[in-house]
Each structure stands twice: as structure tokens, then as C-alpha cells.
């Protein structure tokens, strides 16, 4: 291992001394404090820094807005924090072609503001859009309620440029919505938690902002009844944009539906929905109900927050299992589940109880082909595995990692199976 001073000198050469500073306590990643923070000015500088660190076997942690830096497992090593903050431009909004090219460090909100000037949006309502960056959003594969209608980020991204640890800047995909030339590396980078390369720019297909929007909420006596409503709505010909269920250890479950269309279209659908719901009353609700997922993070220092995924028709059963497990461990819980079967769960309680509950619930979910991924946990539970069972594709995932980051420079140990 080289001396710190020698490492610093080399990193400075790669990125310029003005763009490298000593890391502060606030730059820590899951308790690990890096030595340096680098803020390259452009893609080339970013690639040089990465290759320089790679050559010296110095671990690099990419950081966008830092909002989800604690997702994944703690890094085995964290020497350089690589910030994309300065790569923050929207490079090209080809509004008439419904595409946008944006640098990784742009915040999601800044991008949305640019798109809104032409009545468009990136159809992804992520967490903390004013601070989250495009690179971080992609790397963590965050998705919100719009996913039901518009798909996940994998369905919105059409091109990517990655800086690989050896300094290669590689693009794949393109700037057109329809394109099957070459491998789909935008999908590989999405959700890879920055373990294969650092995303420096992305191209998205964008969607028109809706003419009008209306939210209708309703409640049900039990999760079983709510499940029947949700399945019935999903099996109908309504063209809603979003459908979420909010539930907790105590109290009735509530559902929220978002309609986005012309006024005439919305009114017709609202009346169809009322017919479907029968005696259950739907009320128009405020837009703020769509913040429910993000609100799970408020005062969550001692909580575990996890992303769960299950078949949509199994949500009520899963919630039954959850209730049972939580009762035994005496843990209050809250959950926001989308009609896609993806939910965000918050459990509060003592660390040992949380840890046991997560293990039990994960086992139940995995037995049904689902998954539980930890997004947030108390510091005392840092060793609790974030990912769960990787399945039989783990050797293949390791082989992909080996090809693109053979020295394990990027985010070592943070991803599934110790990748």
C-alpha cells in the first residue's frame, strides 16, 4: 500500500489539486470515513481519477446527492469519495423527440424543472428529488408510485455513459427511444449500486405532463378486503396512473388512486371506480398522500426500513405474516405497498427484535419468490445483510463484476453476495 501522501499526490494529478480535499466526518459512508473527497469537473477527469485510484488499489465510493449513501452493506474499504456534484448539467432536452440527456450529478428536481418548461417529465417519483441525483437514482433503482403506469427506471433509461475503473468511458444505448444495437448496458448499470462503473450521463425517454390529475382515496375494514379491491381494480379497464395501499400495525388500511387524463376521462373513470367499489366510499384526496413512502423516513434513526417485493396477489398474505412476526417481537410497523407488489416497510423497535423480524420476514418472502432489501437500519445493525439470497445467478454476477471491476475498486463489499 502506498503512503497517504503519495496517494494524494497521484489523485491530485488526475483530478487537479483544487478538486481534491480531505474528507470530513460528514463524508462518512456507513460509519467508514474516507480519506479524500474528489469532485471532478468533467467526465474525463472523473475517468482519470477512477483509473488512478484503481491502479493504486484505492477503494472508491461514488456519491451523488448522498441521500441514499447508506443503502447496501457497509463498504469493506472506503478511501476516496467520488462526488458527481459538478457534473450537473442537462445536456440536451430534445422535447419534440421526448428524450433528454443529463449528467449524473444533476438533481432529479433540476431535471424535472427543465423538462416542465416543455410540459414534460421523467415519469419517476423518487425519494427526495430536490437532493437526489440522476446517478444515485439510477444506481439505487429507486421508484415510486408512477411505476405502475410508466415502468421502472430500466424502462425509462435509453442510454448511459459509464466510467469504468480502468478509465474507460463507455456508452451504450443511444438517444432514440427504440434501439436494439448492442447490449443493453443502461439496464446493467441501473440498480448496480455503482459497483460496475460510475454513471456519468444518462439518456431518458420522457413523458408529457398530464392534462389534469385527481386522487381518490378509500379505506377497507381489513387488508384482505383491501386486497380484493386492489385486485379488482387491477383487473378492470381503468387506466389509473398509480395505486398504493397504506397500512400499519393498527388502524384500517387506506388506498390511494391517481388518475391522470383529460377532465372528461378522469370523471368517467371516477364514476367507474365508484361502481367497482360498491358500498366502499371513495373520496377525493390531497396530493400529499403520495408522500407517504417518503414519510416513512421521518425520525427513523432506530427503525429498519426495507423494500419488499412480492406478487401483487400475495400482499395481504404477506401482511398477515408480517403482523404475526411483528406481534411476537412487539414491533410497530407501517407499510406503503404499490399495486406492482413493491412496498416500503418500516419496523420500529429494539435492534435484536428488528434483526429477528427481518430474518423471519425475509425467509417468508423468499420462499414465495419475493425479496426484502434493507434500505435503512440503526447503526447498531450495520452487519445485518441488506440484500438476502442472491439465487443461482450469483456466480454470473461475480463474473460480470470481475470483467468490469476486477480489482474491486468500486464500492467494495456493498452489493449482493459481498460484491
Amino acid at each position: 500500500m502506498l503512503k497517504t501522501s503519495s496517494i494524494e499526490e497521484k489523485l491530485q494529478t488526475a483530478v487537479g489539486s483544487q478538486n481534491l480535499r480531505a474528507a470530513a466526518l460528514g463524508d462518512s459512508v456507513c460509519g467508514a470515513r474516507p480519506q479524500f473527497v474528489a469532485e471532478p469537473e468533467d467526465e474525463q477527469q472523473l475517468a482519470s481519477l477512477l483509473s488512478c485510484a484503481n491502479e493504486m488499489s484505492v477503494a472508491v465510493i461514488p456519491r451523488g446527492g448522498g441521500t441514499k449513501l447508506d443503502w447496501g452493506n457497509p463498504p469493506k474499504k472506503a478511501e476516496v469519495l467520488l462526488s458527481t456534484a459538478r457534473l450537473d448539467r442537462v445536456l440536451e432536452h430534445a422535447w419534440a423527440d421526448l428524450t433528454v440527456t443529463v449528467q449524473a450529478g444533476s438533481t432529479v428536481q433540476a431535471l424535472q424543472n427543465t423538462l416542465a418548461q416543455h410540459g414534460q417529465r421523467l415519469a419517476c417519483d423518487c425519494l427526495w428529488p430536490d437532493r437526489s441525483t440522476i446517478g444515485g437514482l439510477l444506481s439505487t433503482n429507486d421508484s415510486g408510485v408512477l411505476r405502475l403506469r410508466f415502468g421502472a427506471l430500466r424502462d425509462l433509461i435509453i442510454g448511459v455513459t459509464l466510467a469504468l475503473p480502468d478509465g474507460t468511458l463507455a456508452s451504450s444505448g443511444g438517444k432514440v427511444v427504440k434501439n436494439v444495437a448492442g447490449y443493453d448496458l443502461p439496464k446493467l448499470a441501473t440498480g448496480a449500486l455503482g459497483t460496475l462503473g460510475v454513471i456519468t450521463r444518462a439518456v431518458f425517454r420522457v413523458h408529457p405532463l398530464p392534462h389534469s390529475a385527481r386522487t381518490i382515496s378509500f379505506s377497507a375494514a381489513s387488508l384482505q378486503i383491501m386486497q380484493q379491491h386492489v385486485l379488482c381494480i387491477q383487473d378492470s379497464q381503468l387506466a389509473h396512473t398509480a395505486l398504493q395501499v397504506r397500512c400499519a400495525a393498527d388502524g384500517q388500511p387506506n388506498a390511494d388512486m391517481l388518475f391522470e387524463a383529460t377532465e372528461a376521462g378522469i370523471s368517467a373513470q371516477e364514476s367507474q371506480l365508484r361502481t367497482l367499489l360498491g358500498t366502499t366510499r371513495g373520496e377525493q384526496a390531497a396530493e400529499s398522500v403520495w408522500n407517504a413512502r417518503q414519510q416513512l423516513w421521518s425520525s427513523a434513526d432506530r427503525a429498519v426500513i426495507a423494500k419488499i417485493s412480492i406478487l401483487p396477489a400475495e400482499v395481504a398474505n404477506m401482511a398477515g405474516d408480517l403482523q404475526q412476526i411483528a406481534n411476537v417481537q412487539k414491533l410497530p410497523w407501517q407499510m406503503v405497498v404499490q399495486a406492482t407488489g413493491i412496498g416500503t416497510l418500516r419496523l420500529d423497535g429494539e435492534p435484536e427484535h428488528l434483526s429477528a423480524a427481518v430474518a423471519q420476514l425475509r425467509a417468508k418472502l423468499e420462499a414465495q419468490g419475493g425479496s426484502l432489501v434493507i434500505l435503512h437500519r440503526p447503526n447498531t445493525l450495520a452487519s445485518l445483510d441488506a440484500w438476502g439470497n442472491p439465487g443461482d445467478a450469483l456466480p454470473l454476477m461475480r463474473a460480470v463484476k470481475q470483467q468490469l471491476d476486477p480489482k474491486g475498486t468500486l464500492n467494495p463489499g456493498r452489493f449482493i453476495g459481498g460484491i
Partner: protein
Amino acid sequence: MNRDLLHQFRAIVGASGLFSSLEELHTYECDGLTNFRVMPLAVLLPASTEQVQGIVRICHRERIPFVARGSGTGLSGGALPVQNGIVISLARMNRILEVDLANARVVVEPGVINLEVTGRVQPQQYFYAPDPSSQSVCSIGGNVAENSGGAHCLKYGFTTTHVLGLEVVLPDGSLVHLGGKTLDRPGYDLAGVFVGSEGTLGITTKVTLRVVKRPECIRTLLAAFPSSNEAGAAVSDIIAAGMLPAAIEMMDNLAIQAAEAAVHANYPNCGALLLVELDGPAAEVEALMQSVAEICKKNGAWEIRVAQTDAERALVWKGRKAAFAAMGRISPHYIVQDGVIPRTALPQVLSEITRLSQETGLRVANVFHAGDGNLHPLVLYDRHVAGQEQAAEALSYRILELCLAAGGSITGEHGVGEDKKRMMSKMFSEPDLATMQRVRCAFDPLQLSNPTKIFPTPRMCGEKAGEYVPHPLESAGIAERF
């Protein structure tokens, strides 16, 4: 192929699952792109995942390259056999294994025909959205390999949007599961990488698909314009008005003539025909359809029809879907091209295509997925006229260069295959291609799975990616790198 190996293969698939005589092999020497032909050593038709694994293990042990094949309808030579290799046909693995409508999932074997998926879920008002024109004969496995699109992917997305999980036999014969019935399985999105990899990463033996509820109302509008310019302007206005139709298709006069001759779709004889389909809740569709009609009128449409019945709608689509094959009515031979441009570049690219057509004296018919800028120029020629075939091929590649110059792609849905690999280095840089090949090496270090496709210059796995140094002849402009 030596007798011992044939014997081993026969032991896996049975006598009826192995073709090795010349007359049997002829059927498999090409796919839908018939100007490339290679005779395979043998063709195997496994009936199960285990049989596919057994075959691939032998290939791995003996270093025999293999090419998976679905229905063989591909248009880029993706299922073209490779020298000294075998073909593995998935045609016998054609069962729909599971229909789970509560979760909108259908699990199929790769040999299932695209339209059969919709056929199975239609009674409950569901459908499988990707609809390539060949959907009545093409297989899901082939769709997965090519990431097939279709007219309705503007709204519904491509094959990759609808494939949630894959069982894959890797090129060493091992079995992996990528993705699954639930969303966002932890780990890399390798299903996303596999879909569209054109058979170069392994063979899929089971596919979990997402099906979609049929919308309450579907309306198809047909508008006749004096030329593609006006039709193109109408498309821009539809998009600018914030609408996302299920499909927007355009055909020029030559394509209309051919389709009319073939299936009598009762199209108006015009410079350019626009076909706009809206779907969704009835009240919404009716409101938006009026706006579409007004936009078309404003842009010079002199005839507008809205299909009133399912039968009328089916006829409108029949004309469009038959457009490629219909070229046979107006030309002895033709090349189907597949390129993509940013939609706004349409007028400029079309006028360039017209110029090239005049320059070469070859007619070009144009069929587009106009909503997403996917062009299908059809270059018409007569093979019996000396030099015309070569001229047509050259023109067809020139069109792709136009697409690239406009910021587009060399293929929107047909794939690179054998046909366009030489265009890949015009679209991507050396580091881009080298990075893709590194991913390939993770799946197939020995490069046995459809090894000669997609990439212009195969890289041996383990070979270090270095900076590209042009050959002196290339630097001097004497030779070109493909």
C-alpha cells in the same frame, strides 16, 4: 460431424430430435435474411431444459459453437448458423406452462408463438403487448433474443419491458434464473442484459412474461396526406399536444400501393398515410381522437377515417403488417432496412433517402413506426439486372449512415445479427464495443454461443482492452474498418 458426437447428441434428443442429412439441414441454413447462408453440422431439437443443458455441455466440452433458433423469422441473420457449428431449435419447447392472471403473469417455453400468448389470455381480456409484424409465426424465445418491438411499443414498450424472468442455460451448460415473477430481484439486472443479446449469452428455456389488460376502447384513425412532410408535421403536433398514442404508423405511396395490391386494405391512394391508434377509457379516447383528427386536418390531411368496427380496424392493420411481404407485388426483390432517427429528423432524412433513390435509380418504399422514429425503408431491386443487388445493398447501408448522422440507431427492432455487425463500429466507439464484449466474456468466456454475431471484431476473453490504434492503411484513408 463425427459419428461418435452424433451418437451422443442422439442419446439426448432421440432420433427424431436430430437432423444431420443434407436435405434436412438445408431448411436451417438461413433465417428470414436469406442472402446469408451457412450449412450447420447438425440441427438438434430438444424437448426440455435438461436436454438443452445436455447438448450445450457437449458443445462446451468439444468447443462446438452453437446457434439457438426459434421460428427463424429474424431479419438480421441472428439465427444464421456458424461455420462448424450446430443449430439448437427450440421449436419443440412450445408449452405455455402457467397462466396467473391475478398477477398478470404467463410463463412459457421459448418455442411458444407470440400470438399464442395473447390467444390464451384473450378470454379474460388480457393481451401480450409486443406485436412484431411476424407475431403469428415468431417465437417468444426469438423475441427475447432480438428484443422485438412492434407497432404498439410506442405506448407499451418492447419485449424487454414485458419479460420479468428468464431461465437460461449458460454456454457452459449450467442453469441460472435471471429476474423472476416478482419485480426488482436483488442483484444485477441480468435479465435486462440478456433480452436483446441476440443469442450470444446463452439459451433461454423458460420465460416469465407480463400480460396487460385490454383497454376499454381502441380507435384507429387513418389520415391521407399529400406527402410525408405533412404527415410528419401532424405526428410532431400530436406529440407536442401531450398525447401518447398506442401506435402511430406511416406509409408512403409506394408502400400503400403494395399493401393495396396484396391485401386490399382499402387505403386511400395518397402521398403518405398516417395510422393513429388511441386506446384507453372510452371517454378519454373519444376526446383525444377528436384532437388527433383536428391536428391531421390542420396539417393538410384530405381524408380522415376512423375504423368503426373491429373488422375495419383489423383490415387497416392487416395492410400495415403485410407491407413488407407486399413488396413482392411491385418488385421482384427487396431489402428490408431497419433504422431509427430522432423523429424530428424525419423530413430531412426522407428527403435524403429520396435523393439517394433518384441517384441510384432504385425505388425505395417507406414504412415507419412514426411515433418513435423507427424507419423501415424497403429498397426494391431486380437481382437479374447485373449490379442491381449490390447497388441496393449499398443504398440500404447508406440509409443507415443517414440514421446515424441524424443521431439515431442502426436497428430499432430487427437486431444486428450478421447483417449489421459491420455498422456497429460506426455507431459505437472501440471502448463502447470492448465494454460490451467484456460483459459477453462473463457469460460466455469460450465464445461458443452464436459467436460471430453483433460484434465486428470478436475479442478473445482475457485479452486486455487497449487503446485502439488505426491501421496505417486506415489512417491513409485507403481501407475502412468494419
